[in-house]
């Protein structure tokens, strides 16, 4: 018995949701970053699933690029966090609201 691809999609959806909620509820910038990685992974899963479904490689290629980008984003994101930490000694996103209204 093969698993229906829909299940993978549901799995991907739940992963995506968890990631999204993570972004919303966590205050640690690093964890938010990780939550975003979760979401990206969810997207990857969806792509791979669809790729399997359609019997085309485009999805997997896409995933490849997403991973590249995720790495790049992670690097830049962490650099930003580091730069911020140097100035403010905190990575709590709730503390960085000089600019508002």
């Amino acid at each position: 018995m093969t698993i229906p691809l829909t299940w993978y999609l549901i799995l991907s959806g739940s992963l995506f949701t968890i990631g999204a909620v993570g972004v919303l509820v966590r205050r640690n910038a690093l964890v938010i970053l990780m939550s975003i990685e979760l979401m990206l992974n969810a997207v990857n899963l969806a792509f791979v699933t669809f790729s399997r479904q359609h019997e085309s490689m485009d999805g997997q290629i896409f995933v490849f690029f997403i991973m590249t980008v995720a790495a790049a984003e992670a690097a830049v994101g962490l650099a930003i966090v580091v730069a911020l930490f140097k100035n403010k000694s905190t990575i709590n996103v709730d503390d960085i609201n000089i600019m508002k209204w």
Partner: protein
Amino acid sequence: MEITIPPFDLKSIAPIILITIAGIVVLMTDVFFKKLPKETLGYLSFLAVLITGLITFSQTGSPVYSFSNTFVVDNFSIFFNYIFLMSTAIVILMSVNYLHQEGVNFGEYYTLILFATMGMMLMAGAADLITVFLGLEIMSISLYVLAGFKRDRLESNESALKYFLLGAFATCFLLYGMALLYGATGTTNIKEIATFITNNHAFSSPMIIMGASLLIIGFGFKMASVPFHKWVPDVYEGAPTSVTAFMSAGPKAAAFAVFLRVFLISLPGLEQKWSVILWVLAALTMTVGNVVAIAQTNIKRMLAYSSIAHAGYVLMAIVTASSLGTASILFYLLVYVFMNLGAFAVIIILGKRGEENLRIDDYNGLGYKHPIMAIVMSIFMFSLAGIPPFAGFMGKFYIFSAAIKSGYIILAIIGVINSVISVYYYLRVTVVMYMKQPTREFAPLSLSPYIILALVITIWGTIHLGIFPSSIIELAQKSVLLQ
């Protein structure tokens, strides 16, 4: 298995190659020729942008798809390239001053600007969702960094972090949307998606609809449409002014470019559905942007809200989903580059290190002290407010005419009422400049030939396009997507 590497159509990606190389060259120059004054880098970049512009110009003609249909050069993308290159050129000219003034004169700045420009060009010419995504990311990542470029300033850090977190968050939605589109159609190629949808009458496939909606979130974020606009004021305020200027012009235009291409080409059958959504978004965006701008005291923040409002106007043209609307967007975005960058240029000129003078009250009595700056600023403000004979009016006129011609009268009425509201805060700048007494000593202007050139270009564009827009309108009309 054999791999035959297909022929490279280098001609079609020549501008991209050129600008990338230019970025790298600038970086190398910075590393290897420490002695060179930093202005040289700006000069080099500017030159590169100019040459790229010339090459872009030579590409005009019928659409050319290259690299297995992942990239396309057509008049539409070429027009957008003009917009990007123009904005980049002006921003580079502005930056030379600003970086020096703020003490962040690093060569990487120009490289990143050029890379971001490249990303935008990629977006405008993307024929495949993968290219869209990559272009978007190159642009975004460069911008994240640029926003945090003043590393030792907390505002800059905050700006970068907010931009980054929200940008990445939005990207996830965008990607999920792309995944769903891929899932529903089995392809990532924009044209093939369209073919699939038309052939299978998959207009009401929930996956496609949801995919499209998620794309709206992703692009809406970049376009600064309500309710995805919230990053804009904070990021604009905190980012270095030259970067803010850059962000307000090119990337936004790029987002519109890609949005238009994706939605007009690949999802035309869903016009009914998303035109309603965009209708509401456009109305909200205009209104929120304009209304909240009134209460602002920081000029950059005010311009941020104003840029949200302007996104609303452009969205209105998107709603019409007509070639007229598209042409009006092209024209408007170009005009917006001139007037908005011009305003930022003035802001830069009036600032000095550590004291950027960003409160609107800091401009009290400017008209007495620096009359020319005041006049120039007023022209940009009037143009942004859409008052003839400046280009901003022409742009708005074009957009409203598109809306009316497509029958979106209520939206047009909301639009014009908004532009009346906007007059209030644009006027306030002229009010403080001319009708209030100076409350502080004005520092000498930080002028350099570069920024003067930037001002001249923007002023020229703002006035010329207001009075003799014919040629550009013609160009815009020719640059409308045909398939």
